[in-house]
């Protein structure tokens, strides 16, 4: 097998190597006859996992699979079929199926762009981790036992999930484009509950590198959050100063940075929070507090993600918000050519880094007369696409702060609030940290925000 210098040597065949992906893709391209173009998209992956609750293992798994999409473009129409095997017959049949779909398919908007497709050079983030790739079923089970043991010893119940995976992602087009990139991912999340179900604490993180994940620390945080959540008091709903831990910030504001929300065409079609109406977006306008800058870059060492999408779009670095001003929205290559006289698109991947400050959570607490400390939110749904008014629940750790100290655990609240409001009512900002958001690396600070809307009580624990 030949590998470029940045590619890893495979110790076994848990997923397709660069050579194997290329062989598969060439077979598809070669069997496409009768004009037009063909393309192949491959995500070949292995993943190993373990899941537990009440201190015992529920399930575990070791899975290898492929997502293969074969596309045919003929006379401006496109047909695509998906399969998960790559034997010769399956590939040949998939090309025939795609060709049949072309006949009944819609026009391909990108088929006759004035500037021909060429392969962009993608960056090469360091997102391969031997530590993720080598975390065996035996080690996963022993990690789980160790984590459960700490809960058993303190009389609590641990539930959690550990998953590691490795994948090769490849794209080939008949006109010569060919890209392959291998990467790993890892995640660990833990919920510790009291035996009577009256208290719950959570912590979690994901990374490409299992070696950077301290599972014992995650477990200890979840346990501590549960322990300090016993005997919660019921508070009146209302507006409170809130200290949102980085996870809570991500749970609540990430809806502002989804590829769909950041889409420039949608904004210009009068949808979403960044529309100005009348076919204009808010690019150039102040949208958040001046301390907020939001960027996406797969070469950011804390953010690393595959440098091109499954569909083959290369992720170039992007700044969406600079010092509170919306400076860019995402667009496709066809938008770039038709509207901006550019040749490259500016896609959003869902990953992002938000700038922060330097205030430690302890200092945020110490400077708060009365407020709430929030671990995370759950079930956040958007009520209004323009104001982004959202509703959801607090979960797994909520405390009252009085006169600079955490004084009591508090029963969960329903929230009704807009992330736009939150990012415009910032008092203090913490140091940005990677949070738990698998597949979409997210780095956000803790935020102390004024007048956060806790709209109703929830008895859920």
């Amino acid at each position: 097998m030949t590998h470029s210098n940045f590619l890893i040597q495979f110790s076994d065949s848990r997923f397709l190597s660069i050579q194997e992906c290329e062989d598969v893709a060439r077979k598809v391209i070669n069997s496409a006859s009768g004009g037009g173009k063909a393309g192949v998209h491959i995500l070949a992956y292995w993943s190993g996992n373990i899941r537990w609750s009440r201190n015992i293992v529920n399930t575990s798994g070791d899975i290898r699979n492929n997502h293969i999409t074969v596309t045919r473009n003929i006379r401006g129409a496109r047909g695509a079929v998906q399969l998960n095997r790559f034997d010769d017959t399956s590939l040949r049949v998939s090309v025939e199926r795609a060709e049949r779909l072309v006949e009944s398919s819609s026009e391909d908007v990108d088929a006759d762009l004035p500037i021909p497709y060429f392969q962009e050079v993608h960056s090469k983030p360091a997102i391969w981790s031997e530590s993720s790739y080598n975390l065996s079923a035996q080690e996963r089970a022993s990690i789980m036992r160790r984590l459960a043991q700490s809960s058993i010893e303190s009389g609590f119940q641990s539930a959690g999930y550990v998953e590691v995976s490795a994948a090769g992602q490849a794209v080939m087009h008949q006109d010569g484009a060919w890209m392959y990139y291998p990467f790993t991912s890892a995640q660990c999340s833990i919920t510790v509950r009291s035996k009577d179900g009256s208290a719950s604490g959570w912590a979690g993180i994901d990374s490409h590198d299992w070696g950077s994940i301290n599972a014992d620390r995650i477990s200890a945080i979840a346990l501590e959050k549960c322990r300090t959540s016993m005997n919660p008091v019921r508070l009146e709903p209302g507006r409170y100063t809130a200290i949102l831990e980085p996870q809570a910030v991500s749970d609540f504001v990430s809806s502002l940075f989804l590829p769909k929300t950041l889409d420039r065409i949608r904004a210009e079609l009068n949808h979403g929070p960044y529309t100005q109406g009348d076919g204009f977006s808010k690019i150039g306008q102040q949208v958040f507090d001046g301390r907020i800058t939001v960027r996406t870059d797969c070469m950011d060492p804390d953010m690393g993600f595959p440098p091109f999408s499954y569909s083959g779009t290369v992720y170039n670095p992007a700044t969406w918000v600079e010092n509170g001003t919306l400076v860019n929205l995402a667009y496709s290559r066809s938008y770039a050519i038709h509207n901006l006289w550019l040749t490259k698109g500016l896609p959003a991947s869902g990953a992002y880094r938000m700038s922060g400050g330097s205030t430690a959570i302890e200092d945020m607490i110490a400077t708060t007369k009365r407020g709430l400390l929030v671990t995370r939110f759950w079930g956040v749904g958007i009520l209004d696409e323009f104001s982004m008014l959202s509703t959801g629940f607090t979960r797994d750790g909520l405390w009252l702060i009085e006169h600079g100290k955490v004084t009591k655990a508090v029963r969960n609240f329903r929230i009704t609030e807009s992330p736009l409001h939150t990012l415009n009512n910032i008092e203090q900002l913490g140091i940005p940290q990677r949070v738990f958001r698998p597949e979409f690396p997210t780095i956000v600070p803790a935020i102390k925000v004024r007048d956060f809307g806790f709209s109703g009580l929830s008895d859920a624990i």
Partner: protein
Amino acid sequence: MSQNVRDFSRRQFLSQGAAGASMAGLGVMTDFSGYLRTDSKAAQEDYSRYLIQDQSVKKLAETAVSIARQLGADYSDVRLTRTVVQTVSGDLVGDREEFGFGVRARVNGSWGFAASPYWSEQEARILSENAVEQAKYNSLGFNQPVQLAPIKVVTGHWVTPVKYDPFDIPMEEKIDHSRAWASQIASYRNGINTMLSMQFNRQERAVATSDGSYFTQVVYQSGGSLNVDVKNRNPRNNKGHIAPVAGLDMACQGWERWLEADIMEQIPEMVEYADMFMALPIVPVSIGRYDVVFDAVSSAGMINSTLSMATELDRAMGTEANSTGVGLLGPDPIEKLGNFAIGSKMLNLSANRTSPTGLSTVKWDDEGVEQHEWALVENGVVVDYQTTRDQAESLQNWYSERNIEFKSHGCAAAQSAMYITIQHPPNFTMGIGADNKKFDDLVLDVKNGIAISGASVSTDHQGMSGSGTGVMREIRNGKLGAVIAGGGFLFDTVGFWNGLKSIGGAASSIDIPFSRPKGQPEQSSMYTVSAAPMIIGELGIYDRSRTP
């Protein structure tokens, strides 16, 4: 339709199988799919053949089971699946075929699971070894071997009864139909648009268990949506009224789901209703407590979000604690049985995987349990749970007290063989009212209240409280009046169902499809809730956009 050529030459399979191991570095690859494609031009017709009934599939499954047993598994089950999905959404068409081979093994009460898309003898060994190895590691330090509920050994083949296999119908024909419906509806009158999406699923499944069961099933799911958008006749009001054509929701049926929906017959009444609706006065929500009439869709939504989740035994026991949340009947769900009133005496809920078009319907579950109907809630009291073989043991004493046979309720399932078998929701049926009332009759029974249709519901992570919204209208002296803007309802689950005052009859009960994510890695499966309209007393109505 042609359900004839389901057989193929075994000799051909064997000859092609050996030739397929061509992929460098992947010695495990065997070209198993090639054997049935005798005619490569027949790419479409290819879907009309089942692969699962062949003896070589049986041999693979049984080989994997016996390897797992030899390696020390107390129990193992093996599944092979082939899933084909076709979609039509406007002008976009999709086509997907996915193979799966999954081995689940149990050692001292701990599970291990391994899966891949490759159907080969080498792979049977790789997967079995892997699954047993995991189970052994997982069982270290734990000594809680749970008894699997007893089971009868089963064999056989079962297929969802369909009139027309959707995969025998060429894509062109499906698209022609969709375009014809869209243009006929649009030509009914000016200012009508349609949005159409079709989906057809077929999953072929073979299951072998170390108890000796071997069976194959083919499950069909067809449907989608056809929304009709009627523009206001008043040109100054550009807001339209959008409503779905009835009878197209996903169901265990074939292409006939679309052909028999009587689409065109529904249009005049839909347009008339839209015109009437758009002429109604609109009033702002006035918060307070009201008697609320739920249409059948809204009742089904409430059952799905509350009762169907609460009666998942694994959720109640805490397995979903680290993902979508525990149920409201934990942490000791067994002690709730027979004494926890989750609703008023009128509330009855049963479960099944047998209803003819129910999306969860099969003959046997993935552990080989023959399907049956059972009660979850009787006269407002929780009496049973959704179970699999390893969950049923905790209910053994309760069953013997009540003189009920100790067995699994057959809820073991998975999205495909690529996912481990866990407890998935069956179909749910709400007990209907005795006096055969319809939605309009229930409205007549309410003096001053609110009617809600097409509600969508969301709850907290324990299913204890939640909110919903839908099309809301005032009821004044038994008559539907103005449309209420911006309103929703808030509820706590137990209070809500204890407010149940009246339920519609059999004629008003309808089937609504749902799916629910479960497990990590997340998987989901579809099921059907059959529900009737109902009246809930003293329900809290609030202004959705009000912030504190």
